[in-house]
């Protein structure tokens, strides 16, 4: 082996090493880039050197840990973005619900000092209108959030499908190039970046097959990517609750399965579903029960009193009747329609499910606790939890119905009149009779919500729930973020580019190149010497 060939092998190796280092330097801040290192080895075909491989500094274990941390962080961060909106809605201020409820009762108080004063009556109506419109605004905001969550789920599911399709495509390219024995580091980087992006949306498990392709599956084991194929997630309206979007999975055989929300624990999809099923519906229901309780209690008093015109009082407030949805898989033809009873003390801030079985007839459970609820069925009418539900048609065994008494009540809360004389302040025709107004004023301190809480206590509980959830999520997010940071640092400590290191490499390989060139020069001069002899 000539000295020149040996020198040239060094020059070649130096060029590869320099190009690897350049590639590392230029990609120092590129997302998904994995540090590459040129491995030198003695030439197997005699003397000299060769680059045996250019390795990715990749650690599967740390990357898996990091992706799962990213998933959890993304879920928490999505939850935080959403719950912070409710948190801000409940910020203390002149327009906060508790202040407006106090204004309403304060106006009623003024009315009790002179029930014949029409100005005081107008003030009560004005305060009632301000109160109900604020309820409507908050309720509509929450309703919009619920719709927004549904459309975000739609968007994210289509992003998931995009990503899984690309991963499947990369699987194909990588296994092909593997077969040709020339693995492209860029393709591997790209695929790992896609998996990391997918982890932000949904928590997935990744396993590597022998041929180098990734199998990506959901937490329940259903595969999203298997070899060269990807399987789409889809969205559909929930069979039990048409107000909610659920995610479905279509397998290779074309069977569609509805995925339970619990399948999505991490990722922004998991965060959205967790928020929708907990904080959002809780806030909607708690606001709703405030509206329903005030409406029923106040209207009941109105009906037992006499207004300024000497007539029996009529309803002052109104909320929509409870919504009832039959499960789309019901086989019977029963339809249910619900109304609130005057006494709603048994009502709780939750959704209810009415089920029918041939053996037990109708039974009711609370959706928040799953506990069964006392109900009474009498000639086509089912009464439970402060509601009376009229049933027409016949239910089949296994049919179920979702009853939402409070979910959308706040956004439908309205003051029915702008005429102050219609307030039934008295129980006689005396214009100064304030006896009923006194009873109305007592609603402020009576436990009219769920039979155990005052309006103010209920609002306070809502504030406490939302506040503690928001701060809990913020705390968890902080912990998770720092965990992600630590894992990122760990991952980067192996796979990241350090510019100082590359600068040093560039200097070293440059010198190495010069040295190898010198070897060639020496070889040449040796040859020349021999040639000169001739």
């Amino acid at each position, binding site marked *: 082996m000539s000295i020149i060939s040996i020198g040239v092998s060094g020059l070649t190796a130096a060029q590869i090493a320099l190009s690897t280092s350049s590639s590392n330097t230029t990609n*120092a*801040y590129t997302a998904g880039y994995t*540090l590459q290192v040129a491995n030198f080895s003695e030439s197997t075909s005699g003397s000299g050197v060769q680059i045996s491989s250019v390795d990715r500094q990749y650690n599967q274990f740390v990357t898996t840990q990091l992706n799962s941390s990213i998933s959890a962080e993304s879920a928490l961060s999505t939850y935080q973005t959403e719950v*912070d909106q409710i*948190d801000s809605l*409940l*910020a*203390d201020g002149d327009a906060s619900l*508790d*202040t407006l409820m*106090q204004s309403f*009762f*304060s106006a009623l*108080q003024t009315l*009790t*000092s*002179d*029930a*014949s*004063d029409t100005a005081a009556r107008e003030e009560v109506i004005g305060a009632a209108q301000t109160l109900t419109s604020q309820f409507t605004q908050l309720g509509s905001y929450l309703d919009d959030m619920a719709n927004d969550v549904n459309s975000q789920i739609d968007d994210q599911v289509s992003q998931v499908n995009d990503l899984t399709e690309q991963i499947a495509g990369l699987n194909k390219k990588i296994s092909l190039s593997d077969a040709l024995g020339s693995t492209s580091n860029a393709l591997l980087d790209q695929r790992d970046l896609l998996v990391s992006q997918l982890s932000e949306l949904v928590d997935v498990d990744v396993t590597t097959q022998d041929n180098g392709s990734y199998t990506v599956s959901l937490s329940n084991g259903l595969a999203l990517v298997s070899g060269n194929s990807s399987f789409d997630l889809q969205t559909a309206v929930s069979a039990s609750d048409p107000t909610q979007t659920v995610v479905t999975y279509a397998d290779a055989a074309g069977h569609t399965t509805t995925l339970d929300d619990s399948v999505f624990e991490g990722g922004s999809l998991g965060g959205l579903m967790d928020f929708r099923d907990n904080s959002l519906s809780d806030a909607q229901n708690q606001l709703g029960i405030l509206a329903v309780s005030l409406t029923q209690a106040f209207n009941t008093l109105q009906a037992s009193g006499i207004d300024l015109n000497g007539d029996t009082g009529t309803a002052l407030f109104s909320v929509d009747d409870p919504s009832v949805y039959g499960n789309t898989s019901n086989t019977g033809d029963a339809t249910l329609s619900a109304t609130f009873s005057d006494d709603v003390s048994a009502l709780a801030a939750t959704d209810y499910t009415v089920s029918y079985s041939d053996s037990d007839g109708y039974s009711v459970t609370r959706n928040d606790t799953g506990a069964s609820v006392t109900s009474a069925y009498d000639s086509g009418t089912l009464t439970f939890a402060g509601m009376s539900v009229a049933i027409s048609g016949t239910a089949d065994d296994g049919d179920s119905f979702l009853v939402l008494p409070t979910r959308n009540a706040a956004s439908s809360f309205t003051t029915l009149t702008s005429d102050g004389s219609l307030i039934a302040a*008295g129980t*006689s025709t*005396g*214009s*100064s*009779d*304030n006896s009923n107004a*006194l009873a109305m*004023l007592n609603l*402020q*301190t009576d436990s009219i919500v769920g039979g155990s809480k005052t309006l*103010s*206590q209920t609002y*306070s*509980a809502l*504030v*406490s*729930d*939302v*506040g*503690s959830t*928001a*701060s809990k999520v913020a705390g968890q997010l902080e912990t998770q973020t720092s965990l992600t*940071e630590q894992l*990122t*640092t760990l991952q*980067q*400590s*192996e*796979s*990241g*580019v*350090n*510019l*100082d*290191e590359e*600068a*040093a490499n*560039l*200097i070293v390989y440059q010198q190495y190149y010069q040295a190898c060139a010198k070897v060639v020069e020496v070889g040449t001069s040796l040859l020349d010497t021999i040639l000169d002899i001739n």
Partner: protein
Amino acid sequence: MRLSSATIYNQSLTSMLAQESAYQTAAQQVASGTRVVTPSDDSLAAAQAVNVRQAIAANEQYADARSSISTSLSQEESTLDSINDAITSARSLIVQANNGTLSDADRESIATSLQGVYDTLVTLANATDSNGNYLFSGYQSQSPAFAADADGNMVYQGDSNVVTQLVSSTQSMASGDTGATIFQSVSSSAGFIAEAGDNSGSVTFSGPTITDTTDANYGTGFSLTFSTAADGTAQYSLDGATPVAYTSGDTLQVNGLSLTLSGTPVDGDSINVSKAADADPDLFATLKNLISVLQTPVETDADKANLNNTLSTASRQLSNAQDTVLTVQTSVGSRLNQLDVLDTIGDDLALSYTERLSGLVDADYTESVTQYTSLQVALQAAQQTFVSIQKMSLFEYI
């Protein structure tokens, strides 16, 4: 540990951003003076603040109610003062009228004065507040408390209810009294009233006085009916019992009461003695009857007896009426006192609630300014670190 350049950059950037956000929060706290803006700032404090604000609002409502009741009661108090004065002058007019030497014209003149008192009382009974509501009509505050019927008798138009309001979390208070209470009732301590019937004889009475409260029938009234016995002498029957002989100057002891009679009765004359409360007390009716009797010329012994008996009865009735007014006045005074006490308690509560609320949600200035300043220093440090770390590179030297 080996650090990648991206990690170095990200870490110093992240810590700078974190400092910036903490600095903003601290600045906001200093600027607003509030520690808890959204529930998540401190969910426990935010929830408690809702309850404290509710307590403050309720406390303010009670204060408003007290102020409104206090205004009504003060007005009632001054009106009752005037009513009391009017009754006093009516009573002194009765004393004048009792003078046996007066002529019909003198009595006519007293009657005119009494008519003045009567008119004053009617005006006072129909007093209104600043909103034009009648003070003494109960719930029927849009109608005058008293109005004259076809016969000129004053009839109560209101009802028996009084407007009450909640003046503290546990106590409700009446903001007035009804005309029926003030003008048509007597206090429970009022004694007995004797009234002559539409008599033609000259029997007059003095009394009744209470002599024996332990008498089995004490508290029950009685009636005397005069008749002429078979021998032509006068006799009377007690509550329809067998008649007994009558002698002028007799003092009867009945049901623990004593009543002295003098003069000559005529068959069918009567005298009725009853508890003041059972005798349909009515200040306006008393005065109207009195005026009418004073306007009647005194010609016969019967006229004279009628005058004396009426004056005697009216005197007692007016005394009772005055007692009633004084009782109501005392009750009004004691309610005003209670309001003062409740105001003091309410003010104390308001102060302690406000302090509690401030403790829950307000920023502690010393603490927040200190924090603000130290975060400012920390942020500057983070920024300087960022700049100097970014300068540290081997590339600077090659």
